[in-house]
């Protein structure tokens, strides 16, 4: 029952061998797997943190871009408005000028027509006067000298008439 002999040494050897066996076949593999999993979890957590930070960064950039683009948009609209106003003013003034020109031309044409009509009327009146005078005087004179004579007569008569009316 109470004996101590060589078996003490064998038992010690057994223990050491058992320790090495268990360490190699049980503890190291299991702890290795658990440590690997731990490392993986830590890794994925840090990855998640990283991508979260990246996402925030991208969001910030995006918002900045959005703000810049809206600013740019309003600038473009402003510019377009200004341009449109300039164009509008230009078109308006062009149209005014054109209209003025047309009116002036029309007036001039009207004046020309009036003058022409007056001249024609003068000529016809002169003819009529010549004819009337020929009948009155009843004699044949050189048509040309008579015509000049009557023209001067009408002119004088007109002038006196104009002076009289004035």
């Amino acid at each position, binding site marked *: 029952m109470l004996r101590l002999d060589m078996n003490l040494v064998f038992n010690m050897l057994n223990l050491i061998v058992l320790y090495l066996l268990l360490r190699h076949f049980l503890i190291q593999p299991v702890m290795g797997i*658990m440590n690997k999993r731990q490392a993986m979890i830590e890794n994925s957590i840090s990855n998640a943190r990283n991508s979260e930070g990246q996402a925030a960064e991208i969001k910030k950039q995006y918002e900045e871009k959005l703000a810049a683009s809206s600013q740019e948009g309003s600038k473009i609209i402003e510019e377009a408005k200004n341009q449109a106003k300039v164009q509008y003013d230009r078109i308006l003034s062009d149209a005014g000028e054109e209209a003025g020109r047309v009116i002036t031309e029309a007036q001039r044409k009207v004046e020309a027509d009036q003058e022409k009509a007056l001249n024609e009327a003068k000529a016809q009146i002169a003819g009529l006067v010549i004819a009337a005078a020929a009948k009155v005087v009843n004699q044949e004179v050189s048509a040309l000298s008579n015509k000049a004579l009557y023209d001067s007569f009408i002119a004088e008569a007109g002038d006196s008439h104009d002076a009289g009316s004035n």
Partner: protein
Amino acid sequence: MLSLRKEVSITEDLAEKLLEELTCETVFTIPIFGGIPIAESVVVTWIIMAALTLLSICLVRNLKVENPGRKQQVLEMAVGGLYSFFDDLIGEEGRRYVPYLISVAIYIGVANLIGLLGLKPPTKDLNTTAALAIISIVLIEYAGFHRKGLKGFIKSFAEPVAIIAPINILELFIKPLSLCMRLFGNVLGAFVVMELIKLLVPAFLPIPFSMYFDIFDGLIQAYVFVFLTALFIKEAVE
């Protein structure tokens, strides 16, 4: 008169049986150096070693980092639980001794429970518990030596005051002796009590006692042994 003699013979019979149960038989003798006797405890330890190693190899196969199976989860819980238990106990300085403590815990636990399978527990042999205690004290002192160096190791005997140095040196022998004898005495005592109960009332009554003496006490002793070893190592590396 006759009944008395009969009782005496029964008692003698009982004592004889008990002694027979308690002796650690020599299984075989290696025929060199005039014959080396191999005790039963050594052979049973071999069986335990083989069983544990085979079991470990079987359990450790196909371990996965992701999506572990139920078997792996239980295994991880057991090994990881033991590991963190000793790790908490022993601190960071003694982390390298944790595998030894786990191995010893498993070994003593299995050795104490192997009586249930009809084999004699190796821890019932003084040789085994003495071997455990000697290896433990060597490891404890080695841990202190490894941590503090030769000078610090020698100095640690004179702490906290120089006058208790003899007691500290005595502890070198007291610690393993107490570890050894506690384990041996508990297992032997439990074994004797169980044998007595079995001889007196073979049916039913041994069941609750077996629960306590074979299973509970065996595991408690395994726990106490490794717990104390861990405490001593922690003390040594501090």
